[in-house]
């Protein structure tokens, strides 16, 4: 099963919100919404793996780090993201990283809980 990590991105959140609306209007069942999300997981994992080919460098200061259930969570401050063409500076960024070597569903299940509150600021 693909990581559900990406559900809390703009793309994933908008999909979840849309599905919620359809559920509220009873146009779809929650079961079906879940299937859509699973399909989304697969699609985005595939897309990121295959259709994206760019590299980013970043540098900053590490505020906190956490490693739990094979998931790294960092909070960096004063970060500079550098791509070939551009540079973006951010005061604070939260990085959530799942293990890239194995796509384990359960290792990031905690990320699904309280999606909006998990990533703050």
């Amino acid at each position, binding site marked *: 099963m693909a990581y559900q990590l990406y559900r809390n991105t703009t793309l994933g959140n908008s999909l979840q919100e849309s599905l919620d609306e*359809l559920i509220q209007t009873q146009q779809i069942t929650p079961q079906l919404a879940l299937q859509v999300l699973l399909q989304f997981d697969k*699609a985005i*994992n595939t897309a990121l793996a295959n259709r994206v080919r760019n590299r980013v460098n970043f540098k900053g200061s*590490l*505020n906190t*780090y956490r490693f739990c259930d094979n998931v790294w969570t960092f909070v960096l401050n004063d970060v500079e993201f550098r791509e070939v063409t551009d540079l973006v500076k951010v005061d604070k960024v939260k990085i959530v990283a799942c293990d890239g070597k194995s796509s384990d569903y359960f290792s990031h299940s905690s990320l699904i809980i309280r999606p909006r509150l998990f990533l703050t600021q």
Partner: protein
Amino acid sequence: MLSNSSHVPKLYLSIIDDVIESMREVFLDEGLEDRVLDDLRQLWESKIMQSKAVDGLALMKNTINSSNFVLQLPPNYGQTFSKPAASMVIPAGQHVQSFTAKNNGGTLATFSLPPGMTYPVQIPAGVTLQTASGQLYKVNVPVMVTQTPAGHRHLSQVQPRQGVPVVEWRDPSSASQQSATVVPSTVLKTMALPKTEPFSPQPVAPPRADPQTTEQKSLIPPVQPPNEKPLLPQPVVQPPVQENNFVQQPQVPSAQATFSGQTPVSFQPPAQLPSHPPESPFDSGDFNLDGIDFDSPQPLDMSLSSSSAHMPSLQVKMETTLSEGSGFMGQGSEFEAREMVKQEDHGAVADMTTHLEGLPVDSTKLEMALLKDYNYNDALADIIQLDGPADSSSEEVEELEGGAMGENEFLGMMTVEALQALQEVDGSSDDGISSSSGDSVGMDEITVEEDPLNSGDDVSEQDIPDLFDTDNVIVCQYDKVCFSFLVCQYDKIHRSKNRWKFYLKDGVMCYGGKDYVFSKAVGEAEW
């Protein structure tokens, strides 16, 4: 990240396509119509566009045939759209209405309805819609966008009804394109016409509105009679005013001055009405119009004015919508509203007109005025008048009446529950207690309950206030979320003393409100 930003919309669209297409069979197996899947897609894309995390998504969508409406643009659309899209958020609702119009050819503009929008959708006058290509279309006349009875949003016919809608911006030439027959089952479009010229970017509605409205007036009388005949017999008919305004008449009389930026809008055929009477045009609540500049008062005025005369039930619905907290952008076209109202020649409308004219442009005041007309404010005031902390809510209401409010501005008339929730939140946020689990007891009680809970939470909260803010619940709306996060997979995380090195891959980032993606990321940080 210019190069990245150009990839992101394509990538997102490809992901959306993958998901939607792969779910199509599953949806069909569940016995759902294609329409539901299309709805999902529209909602999804609209939310993404609303978040503005992706630049140019609308542009990308132009090439994808997922449009709901095919609109013809008036022949006299200008090519220049220099005006950036100004998104107008209509609060209380979660929905953003963004229109992507395919204006490449000039003749057809494809509009995809924003999420949460249900048909019919009423676009008030004075609204400027921005197409995907960045062109601005100004709707000088309130138009109703509806869905065909069959649920097909695609409008194959440019205009089932011949004639130019009361909207002036139809040209006679364009009118010719439209069939003269009235087809209730088809979506009516107010179209401009074959010419593909894009709208001029000028958002100027009022100046143009003047000649147009006058034309409209002149046109309406001759137009109305023929309109009414075919329309009246229909069991469920959109407010005649609307029809008169929007339905194209066989007489395509004068070339209506092409308003720059007037967007053709398809109208719902009367047959559609039976299914929609319970819905107000703003049934979905609020909608966010990207790239829309309102030069005049609220769209709500238009909708109310246009519908009030003929459909009292719609008035009620509007009230209900208002009460539900649908806020409308304060800038509508009051002037045009007045014009429209006058054109309608209805006593009720006249009342509204008078009322509207007497009010300042302030949208909130207008809303309140409108509500008062319906005696709704009394009920609302009664509900809002609560003891204790709730007193401030009444103040809020007064503020609403008095003028623009801060966070409440967009909410318009909020429901009691929303107000209470806000009250609770205001009270709880100070105490750091989450008590807003839907308890609608008096504020005093809630405040009392919060104190003992708060003391326990404070201790644990202080350690990691930033990361795990689980007890404080804030219910609000946001224009833009400016937090940064990065979701990815890690290849390797290395640490040496306090120097950390990150080797990441396949990530999605959001910072500065914008989305980025990467296949590989290398970083270092010092702890």
